[in-house]
């Protein structure tokens, strides 16, 4: 069983909703990322999404665009991000880590080289924003050979037949993008999310994470009522941005924010149980 599947099984047994943070690797500097990952685990996150910086992040709003630019200014590459995962694994062999990014850096590295290197580094999966299942077959096969999951997105615009088809090829978990828009968008409509997640769960067996637009404990709690995982990105990244000049303060500040989200989610979980 993959580390991701094992983690979700564990969570289900304990009646706990996963909290998944997203941070851009190398933002604001490469030295911050690994200590930050450990601090987030200590604050109660269950899986980590590491963003791989790419020059043309079409699915990202201004907050993550700027994080990407900060990381690229440090020259952070896909190789460097895999190195960070390797370092993280020196102390933590339990927490699943997936990469989130765009296809081109992987195209240039080569699918097979990437899959082998990712496995060697201790990575558990990848979510490639611009790879829908229609274009994913080769990559999925390469990753599978190395025991890695390819996590697919679902969106408000995904039809029932698409959801079912994606469910048939996805592994690990599926990531429901809660709004039509880019990362960091506001106005998550809780009722609409609940309805769509209900539909997804009726069609797909995998755990369903929900992300985009979750930026406070209240929204995290309402999403926790319907989803298996609450995914938070821009709200964390904007806290990192605010402390970019004093990076030593970043792990603690992010941990504090995540602790608040974790508590809100735990209350929902306790209630449901």
């Amino acid at each position, binding site marked *: 069983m993959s580390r991701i599947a094992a983690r979700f099984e564990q969570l289900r047994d304990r009646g706990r909703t996963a909290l998944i943070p997203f941070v851009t690797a190398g933002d604001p500097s490469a030295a911050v990322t690994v200590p930050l990952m450990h601090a987030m685990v200590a604050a109660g996150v269950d899986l980590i999404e590491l963003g791989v910086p790419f020059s043309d992040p079409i699915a990202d709003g201004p907050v993550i665009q700027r994080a990407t630019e900060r990381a690229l200014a440090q020259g952070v590459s896909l190789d460097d991000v895999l190195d960070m995962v390797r370092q993280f694994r020196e102390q933590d062999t339990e927490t699943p880590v997936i990469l989130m990014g765009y296809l081109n850096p992987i195209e240039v590295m080569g699918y097979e080289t990437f899959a082998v290197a990712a496995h060697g580094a201790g990575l558990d999966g990848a979510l490639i924003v*611009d790879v829908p299942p229609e274009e994913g077959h080769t990559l999925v096969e390469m990753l599978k050979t190395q025991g890695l999951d390819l996590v697919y997105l679902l969106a408000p615009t995904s039809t029932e037949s698409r959801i079912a088809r994606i469910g048939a090829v996805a592994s690990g978990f599926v990531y429901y993008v809660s709004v039509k*828009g880019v990362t960091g968008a506001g106005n998550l409509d809780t009722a609409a999310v609940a309805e769509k997640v209900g539909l997804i769960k009726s069609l797909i067996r995998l755990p369903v994470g929900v992300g985009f637009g979750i930026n406070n404990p209240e929204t995290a709690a309402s999403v926790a009522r319907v989803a298996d995982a609450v995914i938070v990105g821009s709200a964390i990244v904007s806290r990192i941005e605010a402390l970019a000049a004093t990076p030593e303060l970043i792990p603690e500040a992010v941990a504090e924010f995540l602790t608040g989200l974790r508590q809100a989610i735990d209350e929902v979980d306790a209630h449901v149980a």
Partner: protein
Amino acid sequence: MSTSPDHLGLAGFDSAGAPHASSGAYNWPDAGGHFGPYGGMFVPETLMHPLEELRTAYERYMADPQFQAELDADLQDYVGRPSPLYHAERWSRELGGAQIFLKREDLNHTGAHKVNNTIGQALLARRMGKTRIIAETGAGQHGVASATVAARLGLECVVYMGEVDIARQEANVYRMRLLGARVVSVTSGSRTLKDALNEAMRDWVTNIDNTFYIIGTVAGPHPYPAMVRDFQAVIGREARAQMLARSGRLPDALVACVGGGSNAIGLFYPFIGDEGVAIYGVEAAGDGLQTGRHAAPLCAGRPGVLHGNRTYLMEDNHGQIVETHSISAGLDYPGVGPEHAWLKDSGRARYDSVTDDEALRAFHHLTRTEGIIPALESSHALAYVHKLAPTMRKDQTIIVNLSGRGDKDMHTVASHDGLVL
């Protein structure tokens, strides 16, 4: 062979895999929008269903005689088609080789080939019930062509343009504003065309319910490369018929500049099955390919994935897209339409490049010998003709796509010559 005036791109949607692989006819893309290994739909999930809706509407209306009649009438009465095929006799004599014919897309309403495509997509937008159109623009020509059709159809229009391009194409920015469009300055990344395209994609994903994204070239995810090609193919269909009517035979060579590749594919496509016709695409070599300061992905890049498709790109060793340079804003793009990538690999078309200086010399030369001021983009094609024509016999012919007029480039050329207008 695929030389009839029908919209041949449609057949490819009906079957999976290499279309008509057995018959040998050129019939790309396949059902998934692939041209060999290129093209495809590399977009976030949110866009997949809207792209499917677009493809369905496009297929339906391209086969709808009423839509076609409306499109043809607009191309004739509003754009001014057919555009002339002009024999540049004096220029041909000076170069001392092949007879050169200019396909006069510069005479279209708004001054470039771009409007052939925006008319088509805007009619489609209206049929699909969209009330808002968005566009990206580099030189501003596609932005102007989009703002123009939006004004005519009463649609809201937002144009994304890089901050750098806004500074060098002031006149076009003003034209767009006069036409009622909102021009949004894009300050992310390299602040040029590629970043404008990124921003337009972000807008589209956010406003998908009421918004139609008019992409200005044969790039982007399927069905855009095929759809834009089919709207631009009117250039090649006319040129082919005009040449046959005039000389009773096909041209020996075609030449067009390649930015994203829409004016080039528009000319080339109806001739792809005519094996005797040599096809040359001309990229922007900027300061020279060896300097790295250029915009020539086919000549000096390698395959990758950007803006929804796989194609040749200018990128570094880590897969980051690098900044491009060309004196011509309309060619300043790090990618190229996937069909050109395929035509290059398959050997059906050849791609070469000319520098800023060569393009400028050709700009001045055509202006002085024929009394026609070409766009700097088109001047790249002209500069290549300077090299090609003298290698050919006097009884041979070249059709070169004069994709636009040079009015928009007065400031750029003047400042290059040390003048301030």
